[in-house]
């Protein structure tokens, strides 16, 4: 009897893993088809280059005016890299959460997906993969433009690549979890919040040390920045790429790379658990209120 129960559990676990795998991979394929086929390849390539470069150019012009053109200051690298990697925040979070509205309101397929034997969080995260990939192109283009035209002091031979990739990977998982949280919220609300991911990313921009150290914030706002995994993630990415330049800023200078990483893992875990719990609650609420196949036509 016990052996039978244990085997049933094992079968259930295997089935769940398979559902997670196929949900994620199929959704990643679908996301890429949608992301890359909305226009012809030439326009897509132009868009992928122009959008991030113009975003960075605005920031550079603003920095140039404020600093009097001091592009050799460590602050420039701090701002430029923070801004470049912040592209991931909007793209991954939006990629995951936007799938709910896109499938529900635009393609009207969400109900068919939600009655299929899928693992919904894996499906939604899979939909974010395409945005992660296009986001990566944007980040690379932005940094390359900085190095080539704006005297960004980045020596690729001196980069701590293991730390960079470890931090990047951890950060992307953390962002996907935050995206899942937003996807849950999106399930329970209507069409007028198309860009909930971008909106939240915009709101967090000021509190995560992306474009200025947290010390610049009023004292009462700083705890918000310290409580967010984004702050430690961006700091680790900067340290891995330009090392001492980042450490020149006092906010997190007292913490070693290992300490920063431990905090990033801890907070990511905490936010991950919270995100899954909130998503599950929202999905349940959406079923209770009949919102899974809601079409608002706003």
């Amino acid at each position: 009897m016990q052996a039978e129960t244990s085997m049933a559990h094992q079968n259930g676990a295997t089935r769940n893993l398979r559902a997670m795998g196929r949900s994620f991979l199929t959704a990643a394929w679908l996301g890429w088809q949608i992301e890359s086929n909305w226009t012809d390849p030439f326009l897509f390539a132009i868009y992928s280059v122009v959008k991030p470069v113009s975003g960075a150019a605005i920031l550079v012009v603003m920095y140039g005016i404020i600093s009097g053109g001091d592009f050799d200051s460590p602050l420039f690298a701090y701002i430029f890299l923070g801004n470049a990697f912040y592209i991931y925040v909007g793209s991954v979070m939006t990629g995951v959460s936007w799938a709910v509205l896109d499938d529900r309101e635009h393609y009207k397929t969400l109900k068919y997906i939600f009655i299929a034997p899928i693992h919904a969080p894996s499906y939604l995260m899979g939909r974010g993969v395409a945005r992660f990939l296009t986001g990566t192109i944007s980040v690379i283009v932005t940094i390359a433009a900085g190095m080539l035209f704006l005297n960004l002091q980045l020596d690729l031979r001196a980069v701590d690549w293991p730390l960079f990739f470890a931090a990047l990977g951890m950060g992307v998982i953390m962002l996907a979890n935050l995206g899942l949280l937003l996807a849950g919220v999106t399930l329970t609300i209507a069409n007028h919040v198309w860009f909930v991911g971008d909106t939240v990313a915009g709101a967090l921009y000021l509190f995560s040390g992306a474009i200025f150290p947290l010390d610049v914030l009023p004292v009462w706002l700083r705890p918000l920045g310290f409580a967010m995994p984004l702050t430690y993630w961006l700091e680790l990415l900067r340290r891995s790429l330009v090392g001492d330049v980042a450490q020149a800023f006092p906010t997190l200078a007292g913490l070693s790379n290992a300490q920063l990483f431990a905090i990033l893992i801890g907070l990511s875990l905490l936010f991950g658990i919270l995100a899954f719990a909130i998503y599950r609650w929202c999905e349940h609420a959406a079923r209770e209120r009949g919102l899974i196949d809601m079409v608002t036509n706003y």
Partner: protein
Amino acid sequence: MSDVAAIRTEELTRIYKIRGGKKSDPKELVALKDVDIQVERGELFGLLGPNGAGKTTLIKVLTTLLAPTKGRAYVAGYDVIKDPHEIRSRINMVSGGEASGYGLLTVRENLWMFSQFYGIPSKAANQRIKELLEIVGLGDRLNTKSSDLSSGMRQKMNIVRGFMTDPEILFLDEPTLGLDVGAARDVRNFIRDWMRQEDERTILLTTHYMVEADELCDRVAIINQGKVLACDTPKALKRQLQQVVIFQLQVSPCTVTPGMFDGIQGVRNFNHAHEDGYTTMEFTLEEDDILPAVIHQLAERDIHLLNLDKRQPSLEDVFVHLVGMRMEEVERGETG
């Protein structure tokens, strides 16, 4: 054959809360009220009712999209609330009258993608997609972008999506809605053939087309305002009306006044419609002998009889008998 019913509901109730303005309390809309049905394996079961009767709500509950407010529902023996994952691998659903699907994917890609959610190996999925598309007449559209399909073709693609996974229990919500007559007939034939292929296959079909329910279903539940009013084979439902006779009269154009035939004993029901150049009147009478009194009444009002038909009761008559109105009248919100 499994002895567990394909679908079973017990006092299933679903109430929607509709929010009004900021100050007003939410209103309650009862979409399903104490619904008890049981659908056996291998049955093609129809839910017949006007728009807004609760048919789609019932399908949503049974497919785990919507939680019931009260009562229980079991699909393939599993509780829709406790075991939704067990249910989802055994079912599929098709809704008519909508253009769902990813327009930038081809027909094959759309269908392949859904097959992957069900864990069907790619090779088998592609083979099945090809076969089913041939059957519904879309064989030459395999590599057409679904945005380039007409709405009828898109609906056929959607129908293939539902059948492709070979579900134990299939929910068809108005599958022929919006299709032209020929396409609707093709779909009905396809449904019938699919059911014939395996004994255990079960379909729950909602429709407001009487002929569709009559033609396809083993049993039919007539539903109105969230309540199941009757449930039996179409033949048995119609047999209930065999103590009445139905006459259809074509008469010269005339004005029909309320209570025009109230004075005649034995007129159970009366409907009329103005056509181009004549008026159609339909009488449900307790016996044939009442007809002369009706004709006499018409003659007194100088209304000329052009044609007279006596016909067998249909499911439409059963509906009128149960509800007191025709289905279109219910949909228009007329009071009985």
